[in-house]
């Protein structure tokens, strides 16, 4: 190795070589000068070390920070977003409804003027701290928008809670609490069975004068990461997103998400009147224990109950 004295000229030369080395790594080097750079690297331990470290750092970062995730699920959500975006900008077509239940629900109209305040059992905080919309809320919103745009029928077209519960209980791996209490001004239109987040969930559809609210109920099991973004039990959190109001809370091992196409104040009142009876009349204890065992087994296999 050639011993070059350290002086400003050498340092400048080394700096220039090191810039060329980085350009070479980025496929941006000038071939004409590269042979000279190589000669320098043979004679300068500092620059050779710099080059080797740079190569290794590049390679390790590429290897370790790669993520070959299957993006097909993400693509589906993007398509749904775009569909919803397109339908929301084309109101004339977006109000078309084809389903028998949807026809009644989505008739054009204004929000009813007054909703009676229900029992305010939950503490309620506007969600300023949690700026990240939980995935459960996003998926519920996506489902709500897709259903609204599709005009599909509800799975069960009934305003009788017992009938809905009877239909759902055969199809879910948790027991759905269903109150007969009705938020003031709203009518229960029916229910749907939904599938997202590797689980089945129930969606109860309510409507009032052309506005719609859907209450999604799903088991909390296996949603640990998502639940870190949802406050403690029985505390309502509101997420405003994409023109929808989302109210989320947890109670007795279940996660509730209200997706509503009306303003926050009304949505919170709606959620409180829905949520409080649910928490007052929780699951049957015996069923909970039995179903929790089933859920644990199912979640490990990632296969929802058939």
């Amino acid at each position, binding site marked *: 190795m050639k011993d070059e004295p350290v002086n400003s000229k050498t340092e400048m030369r080394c700096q220039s070589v090191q810039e060329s*080395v*980085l350009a*070479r*790594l*980025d*496929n*941006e*080097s000038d071939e004409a000068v590269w042979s000279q750079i*190589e000669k320098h*690297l*043979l004679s300068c*331990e500092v620059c*050779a*070390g710099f080059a*080797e*470290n740079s*190569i*290794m*750092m*590049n390679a*390790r*970062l590429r290897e*370790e*920070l*790669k*993520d*070959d*995730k299957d*993006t097909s*699920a*993400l*693509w589906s959500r*993007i*398509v749904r*977003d*775009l*569909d919803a*975006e*397109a*339908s929301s900008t*084309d109101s004339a*077509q977006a109000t078309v409804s084809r389903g028998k239940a949807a026809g009644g629900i989505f008739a054009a109209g204004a929000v009813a003027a007054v909703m009676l305040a229900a029992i305010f059992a939950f503490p309620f905080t506007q969600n300023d701290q949690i*700026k*990240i919309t939980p*995935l459960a809320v*996003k998926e519920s919103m996506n489902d709500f928008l897709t259903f609204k*745009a*599709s*005009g*599909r029928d509800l799975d069960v077209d009934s305003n009788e809670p017992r009938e809905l519960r009877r239909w759902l209980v055969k199809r879910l791996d948790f027991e759905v609490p269903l109150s007969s209490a009705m938020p003031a001004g709203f009518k229960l239109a029916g229910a749907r069975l939904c599938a997202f*987040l*590797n689980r089945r969930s129930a969606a109860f559809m309510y409507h009032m004068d052309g506005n719609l609210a859907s209450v999604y109920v799903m088991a909390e099991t*296996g*949603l*640990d*990461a*998502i639940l*870190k*973004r949802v406050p403690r039990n029985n505390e309502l959190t509101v997420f405003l997103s994409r023109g929808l109001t989302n109210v989320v809370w947890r109670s007795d091992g279940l996660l509730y998400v209200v997706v509503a196409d009306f303003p926050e104040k009304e949505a919170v009142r709606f959620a409180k009147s829905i949520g409080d009876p649910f928490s007052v009349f929780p699951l049957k204890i015996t069923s909970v224990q039995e179903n929790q065992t089933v859920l644990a087994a199912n979640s*490990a296999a990632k296969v929802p109950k058939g």
Partner: protein
Amino acid sequence: MVRLWQKDNSTRDEFDQLLRPHVELLYRTALRMTADSYLAEDLVQETCLRAFRSFDSFKKGSNFRAWIYRILSNAAIDNARRNANVSFIEWDDDETGNVRPGAYSEIGRSPEVHVLHQSFMNDAFKAMMRLSPEIRIVVALSILEEFSYDEIAQSVGCPVGTVKSRLSRGRKQLQEELGEYLPANKNSTVPNLRPVADRNKAKD
């Protein structure tokens, strides 16, 4: 699913066709910008919506990748600034898909190598997140996705000179923070610095 949206389907189809090949790449970059798989997906969805809304401004025949990366870049920087004071939740390996990136590559590693691997990966993500968002996006596009300087300049909306200086600063910071993972230099030979394209040719 019945699509109610009928108007101008050709535009939508064209947008979908242009967008689809880039979703994986967008996600990867978003993940490097956020270090959170949920946030990364949010960011990509937001980017796609913004892109769709402004698709009229895209010039046919121009570089779609650079165009949509410009949107991602702006959204990512906005997002990073907005959440500057938000402390992010650590990843959990669970069944919901919120898996730490790279966790799949544990297979076949010895415990010692695995520990080193995890340690480097964690520190690399942390070091990336300590870069300013403006530098982070340049590092992600250059080092990790191998965009040219020119394309990064188009994607980020700054001159090539700015790209080079940001990249240089980013590299320096990463070297300082992750230098302990590099072995002491024992070489006296010239490292293999043939361009990637040449090296790939050599493999063939």
